[in-house]
């Protein structure tokens, strides 16, 4: 899942407009960012589900540190503390929750490959509800998430544009910038990128 995490970031942006969208997107993907680093270091890995070619949903991920429950909580707290310094406690809490949302969404779709403790210490049961076992259903759920995110982002962006126009019209004869056009452009690009990311993931282009 890649697009679904971004879809959630877009949805949260509509409710928490004070947070830059890049920060929300980065936080929703932070576990995967660390996964890529550990993958390049040879510490974490992934492999196709036996009997498949490893396409959409057919991957078992050995992310025993970044995607363990405790590891995800630790990264969430780290992100929360780092965001609190410049942006305050509330924004820090939101961004920390965004980091952990990755683990929650992954828990729903992953095959049972997510440990509780880092390094799968104690050989506790691996977690994952396995929605990826039904690829079309997983795709549908992700599609709904990104469409909802794009829709909510569009409404928030247009509302912001209208507010900005009104503010400018109080101070002068015309708005200082084409706010609605900018909002519409950002919303369209958001929707296109979300759908393209989902399709790329589904058809294995992003493998």
């Amino acid at each position, binding site marked *: 899942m*890649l697009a679904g995490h*971004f879809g959630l970031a877009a949805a949260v*942006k509509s*409710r928490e*407009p*004070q*947070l*830059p*969208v*890049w920060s929300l*997107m*980065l936080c929703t*993907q932070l576990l*995967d*960012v660390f996964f*890529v680093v550990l993958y390049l270091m040879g510490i974490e890995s992934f492999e196709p589900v036996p009997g498949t070619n490893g396409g959409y949903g057919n991957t078992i991920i050995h992310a025993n540190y970044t995607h363990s429950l405790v590891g995800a909580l630790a990264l969430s707290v780290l992100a929360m503390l780092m965001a609190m310094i*410049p*942006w*305050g406690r509330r*924004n820090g809490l939101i961004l920390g929750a965004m980091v952990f949302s990755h683990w929650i969404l992954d828990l729903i779709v992953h095959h049972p490959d997510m440990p509780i403790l880092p390094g799968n210490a104690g050989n506790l049961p691996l977690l994952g509800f396995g929605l990826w076992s039904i690829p079309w259903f997983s795709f549908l759920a992700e599609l709904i998430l990104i469409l909802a995110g794009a829709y909510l982002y569009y*409404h928030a*962006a*247009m*509302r*912001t*544009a*209208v*507010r*900005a126009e009104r503010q400018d019209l109080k101070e002068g004869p015309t708005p200082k*910038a084409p*706010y*609605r056009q*900018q*909002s519409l*452009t*950002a919303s369209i*690009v*958001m929707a296109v*990128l979300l759908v393209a*990311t989902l399709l*790329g993931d589904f058809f294995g*282009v*992003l*493998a």
Partner: protein
Amino acid sequence: MIFIIAMILFVVVMGWLDARLRWPKPKDKTSRYVSVAERSTSLRR
């Protein structure tokens, strides 16, 4: 590799487009209440 590039591109492009809009800043005091009139106006226009 394509996965990483796609992820970075998405964040950079959307971050740039989003930054051009006049959102409140992270340290701003924001009112989360949106009146019905304002909501309908923004939708209509």
